[in-house]
């Protein structure tokens, strides 16, 4: 059996002293696995991803664990962790005249070779894949939201992590580019794993091979799309909607 690329066990997270956001979250992620993480607003999706990526830091409760390829998260230095996992959020901006290609090349920071000539090739390749090479001389404060998101994805590819966490990172991208990015990310993946958060369920289900459902900070259900979408847990998390999912087609309606 292969080593899971990410294991989370018994994870609690407190935003403040008396506001708990995650409750005993446990799951594991295999290499090549693509997960769609579903959940209503405020269910803890972003918090979970940021905690895994090490952006949110907190002491783990006794017995809780986060492991990358078997190694405990807190044993990684922050640079090492950034070679293992990265988070791409809904907003990637710089209010300064920073060119898109310079922003992408920062992805090499954890590898310590940002200014090498190989990095130039990597940046070119990644920006070409994410359809933003023509933006390379443009400044980050002069391009649109969707364009910045493509630059952010190119940055993540240059960073070359084993686990990629996408938090609404495709949400402002036009459909044409969205299809292209899905294909390109699939080609790029190889043995890597991806967790995708998106409220666009068509996108989520098209892109993923399994679904995690989180509600009120608890991981309610994990499994294939059929298993999760038809579960009682799904009704509990999204009481207002009726789902019909078969053979890769999703129909969503209001619950009568």
């Amino acid at each position: 059996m292969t080593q899971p690329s990410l294991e989370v066990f018994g994870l609690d997270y407190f935003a403040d002293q008396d506001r708990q956001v995650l409750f005993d979250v446990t799951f594991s992620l295999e290499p090549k696995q693509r997960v769609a993480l579903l959940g209503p607003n405020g269910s803890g999706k972003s918090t979970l991803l940021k905690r895994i990526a090490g952006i949110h830091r907190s002491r783990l409760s006794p017995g809780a664990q986060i492991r990358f390829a078997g190694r405990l998260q807190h044993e990684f230095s922050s640079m090492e962790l950034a070679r293992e996992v990265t988070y791409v959020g809904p907003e990637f901006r710089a209010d300064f005249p920073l060119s898109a290609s310079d922003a992408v090349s920062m992805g090499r920071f954890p590898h310590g070779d940002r200014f090498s000539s190989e990095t130039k090739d990597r940046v070119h390749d990644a920006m070409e894949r994410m359809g933003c090479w023509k933006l390379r001389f443009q400044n980050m404060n002069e391009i649109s939201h969707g364009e910045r998101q493509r630059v952010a994805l190119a940055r993540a590819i240059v960073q070359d992590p084993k686990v990629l966490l996408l938090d609404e990172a495709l949400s402002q991208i036009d459909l044409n580019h969205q299809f292209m990015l899905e294909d390109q990310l699939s080609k790029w993946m190889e043995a890597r794993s991806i967790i995708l958060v998106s409220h666009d369920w068509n996108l989520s289900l098209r892109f993923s091979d399994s679904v995690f459902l989180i509600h009120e900070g608890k991981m309610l259900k994990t499994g294939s799309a059929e298993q999760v979408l038809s579960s009682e847990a799904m009704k509990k998390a999204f009481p207002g909607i009726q789902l019909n999912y078969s053979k890769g087609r999703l129909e969503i309606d209001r619950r009568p």
Partner: protein
Amino acid sequence: MKKAVVIAALLWALGFWFSLSFGVLDSPTPEIIAGLRLPRALLASAVGIGLSIAGVILQSLFSNPLAEPYTLGISSGASVGAVLSSVLHLSLWFGKSASTSLFAIVGAVAFGLILVLSERSRSRGTGSGSTHLLLTGMMLTFLGSSWIALMIAVSDSDGIQSALFWLLGDLSRAEFQPSLLALVSAAAFAFLAYRKAEVLDLFLLGEEAASSLGLSVQKQRRGLLILASCLVALSVSSAGMVGFVGLMIPHFCRRITGALHRPLIPLSAIVGAAVMVWADLGSRLIFQPIEIPVGVITALVGSPLFIFLIQKRSGVTS
């Protein structure tokens, strides 16, 4: 970029030479040149370097183009520290000017920490809430100013004059040795900032992205804030609160170098020194024989620029 550095260095040298040559007296004695004009030119250069590099650091650190020592209240903190030391007539270890500088550093760091903490409590992450940051900074400036006024009023050193010095910024108190020391330390701190260029680059993307790129944000932020505070304190403790230099210079230089810090920091340092030397020359000569505080000149140019940048920024973000 190299061309820009050379031109800026030439302008600085020219300004320096003019500073030594021109003044109220047409044929100055060597004592006037060495004892009055040279220290001023040295101090102007030190203040220019200190404030522009502090501006570069603070703008990147808060990923906010409107940040600078004066608008964030960090200058005010340094000033409070310096005034406190001088009204208490403190002279620790190395004497009076060292204790003034030390207190200025403590004041600047303290006000800087208040900013960081209030930023943190507002939101964990993006650092895009410029209104919050700038309002807090403005209030810190008011708070600092009132403390300064209070301390000066109670201690009655030389009242209004001294208050003007601390609140507006003035180079007329320059003396040779402290000024030379200030210039050397400003250059040294600027070099430290240059060594941190790659880290500062990452902060341009905001804390969240910087963190997912493997930067220990908290630790680096603390270090850089202390570095910026030292730069501010060194300027403020010898020349009072000169405003907007840290805003204008980085913006101007970014137009030439872009936002990456390896080219930006050296150019900002030299341009900062050049601009301050010329501004000082202006403050001495424009209304001759009356001398106006140099901070008046920088604020006259800087505050309209600040308003312009706010306009431009709100256009971009909406």
